[in-house]
């Protein structure tokens, strides 16, 4: 694949996605393109349809109409696992972890799934990637709880590990749903800093939903604003965060 082609085809593209739940429109003609190598932040009021957008992009929910293209190919009908196999990973608003495994095991399992390790006689604990996974835990500030069962961890710790699991899949596109909510403010900037740097290094494109405008302004290359299922605005953080509608609906006068 040449450089010009990569530039021509957006990494992820959605065309006219629409979905309604009962009377609520959660996606209303959403057309988005996400270029490779960028960090896109999605902001918007609660219930605007941000999570729904991620759900559709990863095949968890099928849109009523519209299409999702990943690297130019239609992935709309695919189940999440097939989409994941193509290089999309996701961290969740509510962490999705194997609660009866330790933090480290969660990552080892993820990496086994990625590598398709099938030898029934080789213990997971001895796989090559162990150190790599420990490094990931280190990155999200959770190395100290590597050997604790997830069910014993606090909500914030789980969020961070959930992100690490997604990273363990070495995706090309990483979708994160409120990566820092529930993470203590003393930690979140540091974690995001390292995370974004690591993503840049590995050339991972990221889309993250976020309510913390500090994080958005610092780490996003672009911001999209969701409102009642629509993409209301899109632009650079500076433009968007100063927009009066955004200040009114999302950011709030006080902080602005």
């Amino acid at each position, binding site marked *: 694949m040449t450089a010009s082609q990569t530039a021509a085809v957006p990494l992820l593209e959605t065309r006219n996605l629409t979905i309604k739940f009962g009377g609520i429109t959660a996606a209303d003609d959403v057309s988005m393109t996400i270029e490779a190598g960028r960090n896109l932040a999605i902001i918007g009021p609660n219930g605007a349809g941000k999570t729904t957008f991620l759900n559709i992009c990863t095949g968890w929910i099928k849109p009523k109409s519209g299409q999702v293209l990943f690297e130019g190919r239609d992935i709309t009908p695919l189940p999440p696992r097939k989409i994941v196999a193509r290089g999309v990973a996701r961290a969740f608003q509510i962490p999705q972890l194997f609660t009866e495994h330790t933090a480290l095991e969660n990552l080892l399992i993820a990496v086994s*799934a990625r590598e398709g390790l099938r030898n029934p*006689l080789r213990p997971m604990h001895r796989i090559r990637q162990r150190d790599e996974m420990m490094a990931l835990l280190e990155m999200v500030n959770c190395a100290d709880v590597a050997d604790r069962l997830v069910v014993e961890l606090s909500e914030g710790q789980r969020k961070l590990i959930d992100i690490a*699991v997604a990273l363990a899949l070495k995706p090309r596109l990483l979708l994160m749903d409120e990566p820092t909510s529930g993470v203590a403010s003393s930690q979140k900037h540091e974690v995001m800093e390292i995370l974004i740097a690591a993503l840049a290094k590995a050339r991972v494109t990221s889309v993250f939903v976020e309510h913390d405008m500090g994080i958005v302004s610092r780490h996003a290359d672009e911001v999209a604003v969701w409102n009642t299922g629509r993409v209301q605005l899109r632009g650079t953080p500076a433009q968007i965060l100063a927009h009066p509608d955004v200040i009114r609906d999302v950011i709030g006068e006080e902080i602005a």
Partner: protein
Amino acid sequence: MTVRSPDTTAPHPVASHPPTSRTPASGRVPARHVLTALGILALIAVPFVVPQLQLLINLALAKGLAVLGVTVILRAGQVSFGHALFFGISAYAGAFLISAWPGADLIVVLIAGALGAAVSGLLVGLFVVRYRGIFFGMLNLAFSMIFWSILEKFYHYTGGADGIRLTRPTVLGHELGRADFELILFYLAIALMVGLGWFTLRWLASPAGQLFQTLKTNETRLEYLGLSPRRVLLSGYVLSAVLCGVGGSLMGMTQGVVTPEYVWWVRSAEMVFIAVLGGAGSVRGAFVGALVYEIVRIYASAFAADIWQLLLGVFLLVIILFAPGGIMGILDGLTGRARPAGKVLK
């Protein structure tokens, strides 16, 4: 829209018994390995030391293999009330083989049984892996009861409730008398226990086995790791069917007869019962549980024939209420390998 499987909705997933063998790679041999080796040696000595227990232990080991199958499924957080199905299918496969080909070899009978279990495990599995929780349990029950009814109904072929006699198979071409044959079966059972038990332990600790065990806690994440939860469940399901099947074949040859009782639901429930008694999810526990269960049951039914069920029930209650880790939990407690208490929650 996609639907989440029912089992993962428990608001607070609660850790249960050993999720993984998190044995720290330390230099000295853990007490558990020493005990296991001693236990196996003790079993090997049985025919010479306490020959009257040989049959009992042989049956218990056969059952232990089946319980191991149920244990595997338990590790995925699922309970099957129909695994006796594979126990029975395999035993009947052996019986049909022997009646069609008298004097078939022991190994051939065993392989035929395991194959039968594997194939039926795959077929039934393709269907039941779509379900979780009580649906999974009940569908397994339904399949076993359907098979049970077939065994009872087509009695011209299956011998109905009386079942089919298995004449003694040859062993590597030799026809043996009962005593020799039983001795061979006994050591075969031990060999299978060691071999399959070891394999299962390794499998459970391997990435494939660990993935299988994640079904217990979060299928959404599994899906988002790029895997199909159904396919993952199916792999373990077939393994469990084969384990049950090998147990069934052994049981059939030891008893010399197979009856529909092999697939009756109470037998499936009994397997779950033993699995928990031994220590839910514990590979060694499957065999320890089966041995203890059979011994308790024999002595209860011999010396308190009127109330053996009652005694067994009380025994089970005591274990669950006071030693929820099962017999293995007690043993581990004694050998100081108790889990960090943090893992027993709230």
